[in-house]
């Protein structure tokens, strides 16, 4: 009977090998599939019940984990509140994470490979693994000014603003209204969290949106900075070059004309380019858009960052774009920031920052440093340019800066002038549709000779009368307050 016993032992061996292979499959090869499932409560609750690292602005935590006496042990709270909600995002049990909570999750939860040695130490010393901290580039004074400015516009306002340090790309402020209280979504009272979330998602003003990066709208006249840059670069112009300044521009191939906003001329048939920018002359820039090729215009826009995502530290983001325009009429309208051109506030801040930094557009970033729980610096954000080529030459940047200073000193952006500081700026008012009020834009930087801050403000919807909406009046004071906060 020994032969069948030997056969039997081979059979048993096969059974055990099958068990071992299957276990290896479940626990090794398919493990991440199981772990990534949304219905895997082990993983979601662990993430939820963990002491996550802090999100810091300066020395102050705007998001932190506090001990709680329920089974989740730690409660995520947001001392930064509504002011910082578009940046921090929230961390909820049922609705996942957004903002920095999401984009920096691996660091905050301590799972990131950068924190590997810390994890190893935690393992050896058998202490709870602690998450790393994320320090933001935000300047709290500028952020305060931004948030106060936006909320001062009143209830029922959709607006956003971004400020960048032109030399480095550090984001100094990022605010969006309406906003929300992230602590209400992070609460362990899941019923209350769910009620808050449903109310926020139903709200037609979309308070959960971070408009500074997630909303791309026609930039209107602020886009004339890009057109002017292309005209100086490609057509060899300068601030004194003569451009068409008539009351209306005939658009070839159409029965419509492109008029100026107030229906009058910009101060003569022929005006200087500086004058055209001062008064935000539609006919002048429409004509320049037709004189330039569509390719040159798009190349110029993309050199400033259109068509790409440049901010890696937070998401999701809307893409700014300058689409193909077939036909001179469309080129003319695109050149004044209408047609299908759209941009986020971040993008328009990058345009100003690029001009302010002598033509080099720095890659914007929000995460300054990543530190371990024991405050060792794990990672340090470094300034880089978005491209090897500058967007415009240093000379072009200087000419544009002079022109923008003139816009503040003698033109539409006067509201942003700061005594004793030369400010460069540009307003914008973009038509959306006949039914709804136009979008108001404002972008600026200061001090013009050595810029330390570039700002873009976008007001998507406000309670203001249609006729009252002009970029300068709504966005200007906010930009001014932010610049003052940065300079002082």
């Amino acid at each position, binding site marked *: *009977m*020994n*032969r*069948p*016993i*030997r056969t*039997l*032992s081979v059979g*048993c*061996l096969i*059974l*055990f090998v*099958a*068990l*071992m292979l*299957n*276990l*290896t499959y*479940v*626990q*090794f090869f*398919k*493990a*991440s*599939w*199981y*772990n990534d*499932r949304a*219905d*895997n*409560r*082990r*993983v979601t*609750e662990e993430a939820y019940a963990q002491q996550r690292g802090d999100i810091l602005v300066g020395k102050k935590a705007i998001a932190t984990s506090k001990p709680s006496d329920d089974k989740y042990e730690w409660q995520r709270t947001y001392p930064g509140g509504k002011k910082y909600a578009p940046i921090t995002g929230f961390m909820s049990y049922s609705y996942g994470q957004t903002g920095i909570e999401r984009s920096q999750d691996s660091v905050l939860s301590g799972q990131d490979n950068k924190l590997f040695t810390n994890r190893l130490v935690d393992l050896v010393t058998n202490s709870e693994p602690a998450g790393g901290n994320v320090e933001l580039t935000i300047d709290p004074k500028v952020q305060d000014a931004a948030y106060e400015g936006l909320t001062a516009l009143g209830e029922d306002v959709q607006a956003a603003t971004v400020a960048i340090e032109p030399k480095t790309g550090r984001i100094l402020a990022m605010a969006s209204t309406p906003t929300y209280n992230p602590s209400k979504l992070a609460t362990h009272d899941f019923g209350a969290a769910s009620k808050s979330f449903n109310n926020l998602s139903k709200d037609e003003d979309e308070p959960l949106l971070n408009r500074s990066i997630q909303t791309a709208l026609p930039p209107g006249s602020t886009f004339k900075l890009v057109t002017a840059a292309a005209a100086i670069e490609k057509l060899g112009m300068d601030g004194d070059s003569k451009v068409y300044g008539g009351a209306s521009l005939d658009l070839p191939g159409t029965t419509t004309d492109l008029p100026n906003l107030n229906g009058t001329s910009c101060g003569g048939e022929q005006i200087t380019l500086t004058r055209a920018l001062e008064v935000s002359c539609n006919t002048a820039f429409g004509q320049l858009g037709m004189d330039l090729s569509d390719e040159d215009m798009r190349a110029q826009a993309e050199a400033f960052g259109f068509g790409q995502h440049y901010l890696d530290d937070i998401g999701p983001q809307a893409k700014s774009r300058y689409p193909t325009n077939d036909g001179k009429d469309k080129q003319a309208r695109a050149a004044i920031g209408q047609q299908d051109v759209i941009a986020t506030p971040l993008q328009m801040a990058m345009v100003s920052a690029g001009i302010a930094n002598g033509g080099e557009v720095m890659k914007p970033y929000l995460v300054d440093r990543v530190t371990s729980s024991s405050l060792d610096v794990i990672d340090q954000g470094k300034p880089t340019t978005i491209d090897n080529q500058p967007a415009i030459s240093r000379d072009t940047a200087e000419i544009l800066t002079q022109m923008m200073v003139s816009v503040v000193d003698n033109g539409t952006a006067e509201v942003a002038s700061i005594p004793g500081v030369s400010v460069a700026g540009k307003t914008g008012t973009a038509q959306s549709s006949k039914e709804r009020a136009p979008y108001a834009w404002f972008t600026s930087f200061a001090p013009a000779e050595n810029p330390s801050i570039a700002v873009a403000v976008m007001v998507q919807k406000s309670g203001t009368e249609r006729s009252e909406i002009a970029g300068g009046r709504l966005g200007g004071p906010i930009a001014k307050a932010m610049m003052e906060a940065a300079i002082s």
Partner: protein
Amino acid sequence: MSGFTPASSMPVFVHRSRRGAELVLMILALAVGIGAYAAVGLGVQEKVPVDIVGYGTWLVALLVAAHIGVRLLAPYADPVLLPLVAMLNGFGLAVIHRLDLAAGASESDAFARQQLIWMSLGVVLFLITLFVVPDHRMLQRFTYTAGLGAVVMLILPMLPIIGKTINGARIWINLGPVSFQPGEVAKVLLVVCFAGYLAVHRDALALAGRRFVGIDLPRGRDLGPLLMMWVISLAILVLQRDLGSSLLFYGLFVVTLYVATERKGWIVVGGLLFAGGVFAAISLFSHVRVRVLTWLNPFDYYPDPVNGTSSGQLVEGLFGMAWGGMIGRGFGSGEPWRVPYANSDFIIPAIGEELGLTALLALLLCYGLIVERGLRTAIVARDDFGKLLSVGLATSVALQTFVVVGGVTGLIPLTGLTTPFLSYGGSSLVANWVIVALLLRVSDQSRRPLPTAPSDEDLAAEETQIVKLDKGAMNK
């Protein structure tokens, strides 16, 4: 003549008793058991359990008693088996203790405490078995008694008053304060019955009979009693809704039959019958169909049950094992309380979650070794009954491990069985200790040196005696 050596004086291979090796392995097994218990305390409560000395002493006393019992009662028994089961049992106790802590059980109703009592009973029965069965061949006398006993054991839970249904399976009986699964005892009795019957009838089964389509069919009268046995067991099991045991008994039957007759045809016939049975069971019984469906698409029934069917236990177990990964989360850092019945059927996922793939592979190796030692005992056994008995016992461990581990890891549909020696469950633990005692008994008989026949010189040295027989004696 000078170069010729008579066969009788050739050096015969004599097994060494290897009790020293067993002792060393026992110390390692105790280190695992007591170490795991301490690790549970450190991991969950951040301190060595306060009762570690008392617990450790009791475990040492039990296992030393088992070792001494083997030294006295079965000195030539296999030296690896006892340490292996000691390790599994001790480790299982630590894991059950950990699950008690997770469930917040108090001292008095803790499963680990009860399991320790069952283990003590198991070791006592282990020693009693070795003592009352000095030679396994005496069990052959009880072939039919064992068969009858198995049937009675299987019927017991069906009886009113003492029978008890737990989780849909009517496999329990109430004995005052304790519940008992007589099916576990039936398992051992059936192995004895199969081995005894087949040892006698193997020639008839293998040789007599008609050949039909290339397969040698045995005569009905040889097969009759066995088939009846099998049908009765299966019928009872289907009525009791215990799929795991049903699978185990059937597997035991086919394997023992194959080994006894040395005919592969039995595997073929057995496989076909099995396939037919599975098909019939799936189409006839909804509780079987549900098991297959939840096995194929576990996530269709998770997290919300569909028509009262949930795969939560299986899926939570898989999540736990995946979460544990290669090295596990460590004692106290997992969430094994998410899996219902983690301390019995689902102890494998609980271990996988906290100690990882590494621990599970090590445990499977231990089970593999138990089976291997059992089959090795069958190979060296000197009699047919001994061979068949150890084949049956080793196969029962192999099949039970495969059915339960395969079930909870999603390899095969889930059927309820305990993991031998690891899971909480008194009946199973006691029965398995008896299985080990029987394996050691067969192995002792097989490895013991043969009694030496007196040599020619010895005989020559004897004085010749003339025995005078009287007439009365011759005419008797």
